[in-house]
């Protein structure tokens, strides 16, 4: 099917060259529907070989035309064919200018579906297509961030403000708990490596495996949402599929597309932490409230004298203005039989976190070669390098420390020389005045003492052969390779390793390397068969083999005097022969000479063998039906469940072609589709069926050990989702107003849970298919050209998706049995995935200032007992959507993207320490509204250092006091573009140029009092990622950015 599009392209791009004796010419200019000149339009004289294609200025010229009457045909894909009869006079030339008209039916175009393309009209599943302009309009390194608000039912929560951080993408709710809940990403037919936890959660951040894909190389993104669309992906289609198609060469000649972008990065909000005198006052108040006298002993062993002299604003020390730049060049080149696209890009995305940036250098080429009339070779490859210059955040330090344990009474430097006295009375310098202060968290010392770089090399390549042995039968073979080389290099300077000048630890270099190779090969046969004028069939059969291998070394570490920088700058250090001569006391000594941990090898391997078939039936171009089926076998599935079968069936009906609808005179287009199918989710870690024994080579008493780590489960298998979907597409006023309503219900069973059995089993977790989840919802899309005049156009698109999510079973386990890592959410039957399970806070007792909670029966109690937890609050929004506007006035264009999320709660998890029991955490200024004396009605309890005052033994008191409404409406992007007309500079002729100024995340409407209502925190594991979006824990705010962009086409 794909080659069908390209055939049309080839025809369009074909050049007709003739030699003739006449010297009269037909010339002219072709314009598009907006009056812009239009390149690449084929103009030919019917029933002859004469013709031309319009150039970059829309001009064409057909030379040597004899006088007489001709029929000129103007064609361009997506536009209606124009036919005009002209007469060439006896002398002189003829000028024919034309305005092309968009063909709503054709331009609406081709949609990429699994293993092919379909005309949009014929599609019976739920698919949303996102165009390239929408993909590159956000200065985030990774394309998925730009999908936010642009497709109904696709919830995108942008990663935090950390450079390169990963967004959470959920299609039509969430139906997985322990297995990956992300959609399947397929780039040019390859299901790519998309593991967010290749590097775990190091430094308060998860690796984003999509960040090395340059959004500028993407031609389109098609989001498959229901079983009719994703059924062909079988055991991996349940959470939706995102198909990414990269740009290919088109048309003859050469075309350049250059863009440059410069911008700045700022936080959307700043933490409001106490300053030194405020902190001291409140800390002492807590001390005295607890019945103590005298001055409270301060954290970090700081004396009151020193504390009063110090006032460090750690937020200022960790947040600055980030600088962004990006340059991209795309070249499209066409020859007679070959079309090629080349893209190169460089970008450096600095963020507001001082020292943090993501740099990407990328190259892609896609080449199509028509080897013979019925044989075409396609080749594509990309190579990119992403370098993340990391800083610690959240729980790991940096801004996270500034929001918690880095107190304003802590100085950055010692300020005066500090001596310690030996037993014999001698004194030694312990800290010089200019040394970093080390008695507590010091984010500046942490940043200066550490160099941290995560580098990813990524290459996605594929070769594809399309062969048409007989008419309408296309046999295709594709072979693809996806390679990832991920290296986390951490260098910890001795300044950070030594707390004082008496310590003598060496600097430490660590490396965490991971390699993933992912092979995919498939063969398909596609046969189009027209039984008669009314009945057409398309048959697809295929098979696919995919193998993914993940290798890594754990933590190669060296710490000895020869370590002076990270491994990537001191490759010698990686040489095992290079053993230090001298070992400094305090260094941990290697078991393997030179290495503390020679890097225990971890390997994961999995594969899929699949067979699939699809039949599309078209009756009278009005009635469409599709059935598909896929059989997936995978090494991830247990021996008792090796193969899964995934069928789907769907139908579409173009009602607007029926007389009874036409007669209404209301609809310019009306289409009804419905589908049902079974799809799966196979995002389980490798080898879970086997159980495992671990080996440690050098352990207790310097002897090896081996032990049972996980029990086996030969029954483990995919999650199964049964999806029903129906949609109605409508067009009014010649499709100036369009709308689509979809409803769906998705029943997922055998939901994979990584359960915690009784700890006394000695096992931590194992995987089992236990749960059931229901998702159901409605999606609405409305698009309109509200104003559509020659000079002024206002295009507006609105979408909203409502999803209801409920867990209906988790087997015999309790809500706490599904380990959620650090999250504060639980799996509760009858509640949505990701339910806050909390003790209810009632009020502050006005007599005692103590917090009052509610027990299970709703009775007030001073005791905080987690046995009184109830499911309360949801982390998933009920509704998400976006509103996109474009106002075009002559050469000016203004764009506005607004996104919103309704009905979610945010659990501001760190505020229980910032606003709860007074500890060695700094507090936020909200705490001023605290109880101070009997009779006070205050938002926060009496200040205390004793957890008993809060009725608990711990300051980690989770209550719904920290649960907030998370509704927000965010002005995602406002842009102003000026399009220059074509112009010439010296010999260079520019077809188009534009300048765009834009502001991102510059305005947000929300009730949420914390930093930012849009939260994708750092996640410990897949459970966390599914269940805890909207749980904030010292999470950096989102980025606000201002960007100036230049585009040139020539």
């Amino acid at each position: 099917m794909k080659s069908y599009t390209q055939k049309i392209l080839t025809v369009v791009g074909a050049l007709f060259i003739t030699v003739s004796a006449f010297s009269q010419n037909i010339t002219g200019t072709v314009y598009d529907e907006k009056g812009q000149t239009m390149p690449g339009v084929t103009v030919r004289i019917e029933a002859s070989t004469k013709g031309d294609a319009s150039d970059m200025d829309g001009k064409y010229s057909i030379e040597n035309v004899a006088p007489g009457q001709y029929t000129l045909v103007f064609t361009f894909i997506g536009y209606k064919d124009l036919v005009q009869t002209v007469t060439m006079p006896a002398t002189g030339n003829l000028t024919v200018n034309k305005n092309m008209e968009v063909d709503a039916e054709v331009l609406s175009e081709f949609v990429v579906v699994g293993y092919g393309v379909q005309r949009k009209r014929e599609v019976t599943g739920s698919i949303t297509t996102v165009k390239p302009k929408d993909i590159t309009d956000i200065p985030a390194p990774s394309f998925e961030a730009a999908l936010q608000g642009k497709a109904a039912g696709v919830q995108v929560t942008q990663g935090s403000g950390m450079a390169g951080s990963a967004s959470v993408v959920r299609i039509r709710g969430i139906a997985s708990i322990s297995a990956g809940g992300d959609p399947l990403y397929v780039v040019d037919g390859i299901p790519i490596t998309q593991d967010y936890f290749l590097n775990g959660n190091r430094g308060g951040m998860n690796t984003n495996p999509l960040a090395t894909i340059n959004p500028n190389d993407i031609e389109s993104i098609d989001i498959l949402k229901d079983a009719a669309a994703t059924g062909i992906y079988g055991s991996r289609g349940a959470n939706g599929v995102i198909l990414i198609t990269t740009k290919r060469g088109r048309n003859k000649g050469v075309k350049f597309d250059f863009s440059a972008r410069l911008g700045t990065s700022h936080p959307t909000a700043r933490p409001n932490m106490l300053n030194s005198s405020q902190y001291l006052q409140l800390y002492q108040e807590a001390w005295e409230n607890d019945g103590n006298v005298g001055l409270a002993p301060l954290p970090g062993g700081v004396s009151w004298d020193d504390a009063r002299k110090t006032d460090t604003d750690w937020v200022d020390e960790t947040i600055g203005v980030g600088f962004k730049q990006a340059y991209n060049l795309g070249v499209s080149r066409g020859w007679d039989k070959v079309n090629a696209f080349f893209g190169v890009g460089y970008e450096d995305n600095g963020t507001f976190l001082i020292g943090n940036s993501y740099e990407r250098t990328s190259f892609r080429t896609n080449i199509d070669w028509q080897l013979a009339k019925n044989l075409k070779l396609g080749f594509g490859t990309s190579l990119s390098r992403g370098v993340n210059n990391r800083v610690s955040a959240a729980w790991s330090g940096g801004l996270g420390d500034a929001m918690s344990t880095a107190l304003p009474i802590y100085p950055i430097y010692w300020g005066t020389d500090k001596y310690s006295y030996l037993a014999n009375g001698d004194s030694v310098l312990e800290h010089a005045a200019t040394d970093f202060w080390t008695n507590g968290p010091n984010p500046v010392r942490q940043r200066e003492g550490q160099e941290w770089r995560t580098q990813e090399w990524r290459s996605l390549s594929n070769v594809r052969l399309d062969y048409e042995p007989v008419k309408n039968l296309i046999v295709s073979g594709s072979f693809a390779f996806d390679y990832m080389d991920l290296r986390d290099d951490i260098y910890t300077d001795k300044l950070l390793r030594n707390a004082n000048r008496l310590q003598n630890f060496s600097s430490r270099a660590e490396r965490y390397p991971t390699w993933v190779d992912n092979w995919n090969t498939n063969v398909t046969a596609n046969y189009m068969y027209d039984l008669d004028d009314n009945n057409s069939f398309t048959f697809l059969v295929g098979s696919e083999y995919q193998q993914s291998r993940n290798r890594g070394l754990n933590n190669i570490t060296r710490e000895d005097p020869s370590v002076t920088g990270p491994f990537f700058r001191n490759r010698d250090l990686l040489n095992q022969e290079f053993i230090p001569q001298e070992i400094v006391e305090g260094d941990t000594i290697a078991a393997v000479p030179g290495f503390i941990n020679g890097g225990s090898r971890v390997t994961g391997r999995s594969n899929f063998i699949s067979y699939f078939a699809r039949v599309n039936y078209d009756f009278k171009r009005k009635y469409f039906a599709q059935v598909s089926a896929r059989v997936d076998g995978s090494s991830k599935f247990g021996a008792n469940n090796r193969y899964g079968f995934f069928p789907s069936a769907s139908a579409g009906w173009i009602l607007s072609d029926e007389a009874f609808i036409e007669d209404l005179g209301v609809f310019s287009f009306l289409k009804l589709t419905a589908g049902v199918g079974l799809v799966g989710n196979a995002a389980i870690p490798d080898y879970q069926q086997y159980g495992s024994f671990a080996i440690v080579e050098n352990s207790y008493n310097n002897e090896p050990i081996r032990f049972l780590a996980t029990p086996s489960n030969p029954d483990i298998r995919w999650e199964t989702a049964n999806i029903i979907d129906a949609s109605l597409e409508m067009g009014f006023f010649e499709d100036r107003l369009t709308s689509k309503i979809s409803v769906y219900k998705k029943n997922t069973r055998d939901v994979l849970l990584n359960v915690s059995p009784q700890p006394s089993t000695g096992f931590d977790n194992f995987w089992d298919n236990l749960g059931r989840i229901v998702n159901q919802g409605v999606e609405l899309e409305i698009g309109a050209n509200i104003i559509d005049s020659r000079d002024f156009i206002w295009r507006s698109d609105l979408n909203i998706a409502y999803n209801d999510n409920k867990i209906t079973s988790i087997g015999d386990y309790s809500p706490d049995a599904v380990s959620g890592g650090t999250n504060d959410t639980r799996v509760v039957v009858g509640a949505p995935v990701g339910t806050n399970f909390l003790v209810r806070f009632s009020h502050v007792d006005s007599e005692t200032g103590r917090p009052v909670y509610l027990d299970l029966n709703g009775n007030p109690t001073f005791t905080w007992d987690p046995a009184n937890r109830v499911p309360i609050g949801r982390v998933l929004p009920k509704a998400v959507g976006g509103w996109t506007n474009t106002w075009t006035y002559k050469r000016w264009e203004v764009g506005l993207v607004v996104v919103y999320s309704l009905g979610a709660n945010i659990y501001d998890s760190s505020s229980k320490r910032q606003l709860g029991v007074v500890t060695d955490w700094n507090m936020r200024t909200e705490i001023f509204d605290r109880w101070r004396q009997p009779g006070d009605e205050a938002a926060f309890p009496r200040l205390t250092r004793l957890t008993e005052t809060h009725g608990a033994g711990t300051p980690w008191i989770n209550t719904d006091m920290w649960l907030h409404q998370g509704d927000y409406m965010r002005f995602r992007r406002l842009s102003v573009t000026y399009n220059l007309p074509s112009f010439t500079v010296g010999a260079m002729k520019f077809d188009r140029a534009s300048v765009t100024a834009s502001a991102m995340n510059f305005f947000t409407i929300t009730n949420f009092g914390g930093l930012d209502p849009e939260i994708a925190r750092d996640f410990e594991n897949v459970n966390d990622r599914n269940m805890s979006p909207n749980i904030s824990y010292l999470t950096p705010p989102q980025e606000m950015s201002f960007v100036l962009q230049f585009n040139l086409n020539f």
Partner: protein
Amino acid sequence: MKSFKTLTILAAAAALLSLTSCEDLLDKKPDQLTPDEAITNPQHLQELLNSVYDIAANTYDGRLQNLGELLGDNLIRPTQNDDYAEVWQRNTIFFNGSVGDGFRQSYRAILRANSVIENIGNISLSEDEVLRFEAEARFLRALAHFDVVRLFAQPYGFTPSNTHFGVAIRTFTRPDALPRSTVAEVYDVVISDLIFAEANLPDQNDVYANKWAAKALLSRVYFQMHEYNLAASYATEVIESSPFTLADTLTFYTWPEVSSEAIFAIYSAPRGENVSDNRSGAFRNNYSTLVNTILRLQPEYYNAATTNGGPRATFYEQTTQDDNTFFETNIFNADNFHIPVLSITEMRLTRAEALSYLNLNLTTAVNDINLIRSRAYGNDLFNLPESANADQIKSAARNERRFELAFTGDRTQQLKRRGAEGEDILIRNAPWDCPGMALQFPVTEQVDGFPLNPTGGCN
């Protein structure tokens, strides 16, 4: 004809597609061992057994002892460790990470011990080896079950027949949910494991468990059960027949040599000069006076420990910050040290106290006390007279025991034992059997038939 050609090509395409249908491709076994292939020779079994020691070493590196110690009256409330502060308040909730860790570590040891026992039959071994493997595994299983039931349940004697709730008894590796056994049932399993271990462990066994360790543990178990006769006789056997002798120097947290009196120790194997496979972190990191000290002493403890001076008093220091004075111990300041789990000191103090209960062989008891005292004070000034009566001996044994076995959690168990025996014991103003004196289980331990402990009640 045309359709025939199409059919031919379709058939060829189908044949091509089926090329990939190789069933074997779906068998991707991990590089890591799977349980069915992990243990195939005696060396593997030895490595499996060593993994039990490994986990025990990561349990008795201080983390289990600290939990017991925090319940008692030796320490003040920690200000920097929230989990520990909760234990100290004797109000642990089922999310307490440090408590959960101690619990899990103990049961990991039990799982691995059971894994050893289940694998013994799968490989060919000499009869002696069969017995040794099983005896070592059962010794370690008994140690873990015993300490878990002491920390997570009310003590032996809390109910007349010890039918009160104990912990789960695990004797197989299957991850089945189990109900809560009674304390009596847990002690039965512990004793039967130790009797087997005592009979089948070797006399000497490098750094691993030997038969004296089993006997010493039996003495400790019987002491806890108020079976003073058995406690004294096992202690006597160890003192008199084993190769282990009371150390001359006071500290038995030695390195690189293991203290001469350590019957069974957690061993930090040397890995170079001043470097070891360090298995003492939870002591050092919490007590050391060289770092931010987390666990600090009650002033009453400090005064009692230092009032007579002598070598033992040098283990204690005091520091001030603004208006506040803190008391700390430097006993765990060293970078490396082994941790005796069972010692001759304990055996002598157990014997002395047991004999005082029995009112038998009091001269032996006095001698035990005086050996300890003269070592602690560096002189004989505080020795008991030869004529000391049973009450004096009992009181002296308990007093010395508090300091000699400080920070091991022993103090808490002695107070519980005495409370269960009928003494009127208050620990930091709360009865010895207030609910919070039993640590709370991790939340997922709770299933039908396994109720959690009641909480609080100690403040």
